[in-house]
């Protein structure tokens, strides 16, 4: 393209008229999530809490190096990384199975940033920072499992999907990483990681599914 074909507006980009962008970190659910009650009135059957400001790193073994990756994970976290669909709690992180020879490291407050993990996994695994690429939704309440049954074909009954169970699956044609966290107030807690750009869509589907049970919506910085 000749320089004369460039619209003057792009030339002006070099100057002082460049639009000012805000790089503040915002949740993918910033617009969709409205704190408070939703759906049927009365005691909420489903509690939805978006977890914000987490650190998430994907760890994938390189060909033939799964053993070395597992050893590096043990050295870093003090516990074995999951080799089957499970979520393993460490002192300050959760290791979530995401596929054969790969797992996610979920933490907060910069305890396990990709820069800190990289040296330990050098040569054995490829790392990818997913902190701003996923939304994390925590689902609990008396009707949580009934609501999830509308979205998921996998059996979430406690006899099958106990605390620590995880699944790489799909909900509403959207890939999700689902795992059962520690019970809260005697009730099951299901955690859901979804791609940031699909989060709003899935959020609305979840609200539609949960509305009949009554929903309480919030967000938190606590994992």
């Amino acid at each position, binding site marked *: 393209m000749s320089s004369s074909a460039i619209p003057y507006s792009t030339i002006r980009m070099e100057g002082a008229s460049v639009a000012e962008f805000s790089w503040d970190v915002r949740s993918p659910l910033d617009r969709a999530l409205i704190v408070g009650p939703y759906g049927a009135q009365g005691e909420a059957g489903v509690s939805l809490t978006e977890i914000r400001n987490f650190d998430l790193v994907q760890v994938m073994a390189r060909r033939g190096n799964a053993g070395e990756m597992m050893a590096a994970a043990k050295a870093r976290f003090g516990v074995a990384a999951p080799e089957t669909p499970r979520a393993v709690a460490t002192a300050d992180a959760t290791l979530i199975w995401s596929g054969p*020879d790969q797992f996610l490291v979920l933490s907060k407050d910069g305890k396990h940033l990709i820069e800190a993990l990289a040296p330990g996994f050098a040569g054995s695994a490829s790392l990818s920072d997913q902190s701003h690429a996923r939304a994390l939704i925590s689902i609990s309440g008396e009707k949580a499992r009934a609501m999830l049954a509308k979205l998921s074909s996998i059996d979430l009954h406690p006899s099958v999907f106990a605390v620590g169970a995880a*699944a790489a*699956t799909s909900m509403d044609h959207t890939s999700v990483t689902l795992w059962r966290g520690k019970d809260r107030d005697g009730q099951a807690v299901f955690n859901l990681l979804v791609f940031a750009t699909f989060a709003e869509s899935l959020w609305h589907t979840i609200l539609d599914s949960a509305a009949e049970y009554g929903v309480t919506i919030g967000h938190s910085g606590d994992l």
Partner: protein
Amino acid sequence: MRITCPFCGERELGEFTYLGDAKPQRPAADAGEDAVYDYVYLRDNIAGVMSEHWYHGGGCRAWLKVTRNTLTHEISAVEAAAGAGAAKVGA
């Protein structure tokens, strides 16, 4: 139809994508035009037991080799395809 992923367990069909016949092998570089044509375009239309590649894209993102009867949809075996994961399967 459900497929039992060797990594995830039994899952609904919607999580998987069908690729096709798992039998064709890429010919050697010097195999000639006919062999390449055969590999790229020619497929048997099998009525019966067939070895197929399926992708678990809605789950663990592993490639699978599924032995399925195309007449009954009965699945007799599912294994990880070559290259799935990093260590469990050879090249």
